[in-house]
């Protein structure tokens, strides 16, 4: 039996827009197992990004429970959420979200800096990871000096440098051409084979080939949860 790493019960997110309320998530029940590669699909405005933000501890639900590795995350304070983000979660965004003024080495060091790893150790670890994603010779380059695919590889390196429990990817291939996109997807597959838990929001049908399971969300509800 596989270990449950994420469990949500009746997760709700309601935005109070003053006059009327907007329900983004309407009772999400989901169980995600360690080592799983889960794809979340759905049209825009379906609530998949909101789910992603809550799973990533960037946002808090307005109702329901979220348990990450046996911890009741929905009850944590902001300071504790930051620590969870730092140590349990690695983000990969559609728009890369690298700091433009820092070279890629410094970008990858960022999560290590926020958990207090000493400078030398941090640098060594970041170089190691950048070599893994094939950018060992570009350490001093700024993100603007790299191609989209390379930037996304930097972002992946940053996401996994702290050895998080889950990797959350939000449309990681959305801004990439087909070749770079497949390139990135194969890195995710590789990470999955190494035992990482990956949750990916995507439109990309090719992901279906790599993911264990696909969840469809429409209007804040899960419509299926079949194992692919």
């Amino acid at each position, binding site marked *: 039996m596989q270990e449950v790493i994420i469990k949500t019960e009746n997760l709700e997110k309601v935005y109070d827009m003053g006059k009327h309320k907007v329900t983004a998530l309407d009772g999400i029940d989901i169980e995600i197992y360690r080592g799983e590669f889960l794809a979340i699909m759905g049209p825009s405005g379906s609530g998949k990004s909101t789910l992603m933000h809550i799973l990533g501890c960037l946002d808090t639900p307005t109702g329901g429970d979220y348990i990450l590795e046996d911890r009741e995350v929905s009850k944590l304070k902001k300071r504790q959420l*930051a620590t969870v983000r*730092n140590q349990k979660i690695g983000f990969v965004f559609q728009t890369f979200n690298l700091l433009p003024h820092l070279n890629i080495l410094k970008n990858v060091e960022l999560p290590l800096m*926020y958990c207090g790893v000493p400078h030398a150790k941090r640098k060594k670890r970041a170089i190691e990871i950048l070599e893994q994603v094939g950018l060992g010779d570009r350490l001093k380059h700024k993100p603007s000096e790299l191609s989209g695919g390379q930037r996304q590889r930097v972002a992946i390196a940053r996401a996994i440098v702290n050895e998080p429990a889950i990797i959350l990817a939000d449309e990681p291939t959305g801004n990439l051409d087909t070749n770079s996109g497949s390139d990135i997807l194969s890195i995710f597959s590789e990470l999955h084979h190494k035992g990482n838990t990956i949750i990916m929001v995507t439109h990309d049908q090719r992901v279906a080939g790599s993911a264990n399971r696909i969840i469809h969300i429409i209007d804040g509800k899960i419509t299926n949860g079949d194992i692919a």
Partner: protein
Amino acid sequence: MAISLRESVIVGLSDLWIRKVRTVVTVLGIVLGTMSIIVVLSLVKGVNKMTEQWLQERGGATKISVHRNWEYNRENNERWYFDFKELRLIESLIPEALYFNPQFNQWQWYRAFYNGKEFWAPVMGVFPDFTKIEEWDVQKGRFLNNFDLDAYNDVIVIGTTVRDELFGNENPIGKYIYVMDRKFQVIGIMRHRYMKARNQIGDDNALEYLNRRCFVPLSTVLHKVSNENRVQSFDVKLRDVSQVIPFKDKLDAILLNLRHGHQIFTVESAKERIDQSSQDTMVFKIVFIMISSISLFVGGIVITNIMLATIQERTREIGIRMATGARRFDIFVQFLVQTVLTTLIGGILGVMLGISILGKVSSFIDMEVVVDVKMIVLAVIISAGVGLVFGIAPAIHASNLNPVKALRYE
């Protein structure tokens, strides 16, 4: 496990370096503020030092002078001068005085003749202690001594200007000059006195008037030259500054007793004049510090504004940092440190600018300025303090950003 201060400083410095032009513009107010603090403090210190130096040249802080009280309305017949007997009496009543020197006719000028040449000079009758009280001795020959005083000798000590005017290159020691219709033998030449004058109108030597003086034994003047036996003033020197105030009170009491309670003489101490002068400059100092503070305050508001704009511009970056695990406190520290670094740089620039223009200011107004480490440290601390105070609001704003909204910010 927070980000360390060292880390914040490194991050802050590189941020400032990336936005060099903005950094410079931001700190302009702080630069001007700290610059004016340095300039004003140095000028005030310079004025005080000059006053002190002047008083030091005139006998130092332990000197006490007694002279006629010109404000006293003389209705009764109390004498406004001392005779020789009274002077000896006062001297015996103040054994704690290190030196005692009465002076005769400080304000009267006499014609001195030598070999057909003449020179108008103020001639003073003094005690041998004169050299000790004024800290001014002969450069050649000797000064008057107790024997001269007791024997009413006709001897004279002259200033360097008197020597130049009457003798030129000739050696005056042992020569005779005529003053006050008597023949005096020159026994010494006083050391030349010089102090750079504040303004260069006329003579540039503020102490030139001293070089024009001649000194003879007080007893000679009182008993042989003048029939009047009048001494209007005397000076006393004490061992220690702490004695000044009690001694002054005691001397006041003695003088009041001698003149039956009438305030005919005033007792003045150099120390009080030093205190008075630093009190005067204090007012000046306070006013200018207030003006500098306004400049710093305006500079601080500018910094708050620019930091808020910077944070808006960097909203996305803040979101990214939060997503990778930065706590609110980390973000707060990052921006606060950056603001403090900005103002610190401004402060250091201001100090450097202040010091560099002080040289020009001091030569322009022809005054010495004093820069010390204490005021530099003070100015730098103040500038960092401005950053700390005016950086708090932007830093709180940055740390309170919502991570989701910050990440989506375009």
